[in-house]
């Protein structure tokens, strides 16, 4: 990230945590520490006093390459990509139903 202070010479560490082995890591907050080890020794108690966690990452903010503010506009995209999402396939249920009903109708006629 671009704003980098050296308060008391300490660095900023971003803290991430994982709630269960199958959940993703989530960003919590940041703290000031002289190095990774000290940052880790304080991370859980500062941000996760009431949450259960199975793992923690501390990442020096300097080491994170952040999308620059002026480029964030390029993160926007048109809402025309329904073909990538389940909402783009909303007709499937009714088609399957129609096939089942036709099939069942044919079979009942044959009996």
């Amino acid at each position, binding site marked *: 990230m671009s704003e980098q202070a050296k308060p008391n010479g300490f660095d900023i560490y971003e803290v991430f945590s994982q709630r269960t082995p199958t959940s993703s890591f989530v960003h919590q907050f940041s703290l*000031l*520490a*002289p190095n990774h*080890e*000290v940052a880790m*020794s*304080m991370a859980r*108690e*500062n941000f996760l006093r009431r949450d259960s966690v199975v793992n923690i990452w501390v990442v020096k903010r300097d080491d994170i390459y952040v999308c620059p503010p002026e480029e964030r506009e390029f993160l926007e995209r048109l809402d025309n990509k329904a073909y990538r999402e389940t909402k783009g396939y909303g007709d499937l249920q009714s088609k399957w139903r129609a096939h089942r009903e036709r099939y069942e109708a044919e079979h009942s006629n044959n009996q």
Partner: protein
Amino acid sequence: MNTDQKALQELLFQLADDDFILAYRGSEWLGLAPHIEEDVAFSSMSQDTMGHAVMFYEMLEELGAGTADDLAQLRKPQDFRNAVLVERPNGTGHYMEQPNYDWAYAVARTYLYELFKWVRLEALMSSSYQPLVQISRKMMTELRYHLMHWQTWTKHLAGGGQESRDRLQAAIAQVCQDIEGLFSFGPHADAIVAAGLIADASTLKARWLEKASDALAKNGLALPDAFPAPSHDGRAGEHTEQLADVLNTLSEVYRLDPAAAW
């Protein structure tokens, strides 16, 4: 009360009072630690430690020794069984006025005590008293984090330049003045060990010595060659003036009316 029951209660008071008084000393640091993030972390450990004291007081309550709150707040200093090490002040001054607190002493005392606590809990895992076995396992879970945390501090103060290193080494020497007191089981020591409640004191001391020496050696620090006999045997109810002050503070409100609901 038969000998075994007396022995059990004596041991439980030692366990409870050690944690209770050290947690009090930790709570005096609240808001005054050297770094805001550390203040928050340290407080969690003081809460864990006081939480452990509560678990021990509740075991005593179940044995009919009195309610946990009464046991923690209404006993006289001579009835407390904590080692003198945990009642030593954090420095000069009062927590509300001119607290000249020594962080090196806080690190050295807490770390060396918690290493002792680890050894003691490990020994309690084979206690003849089943509830102690179960409770020890639970407490060791939290203690792992404490040891990691204090190990980190020891490493950083040891490697933090001459002044810091000297301060830490001096604090270790100061803590060691009182260290023998941790390895006393008091006047009922024989009954405590005979009942199979815990391994004998010399076994605990040997295990602690090994652990503490290793932990310090890793950071180029050392324990003194010999430890003086304790000035007061806290396990026998011998305490410094400071314990009376601590207990007056801890019970100031409760004593207004112990029968009231607070």
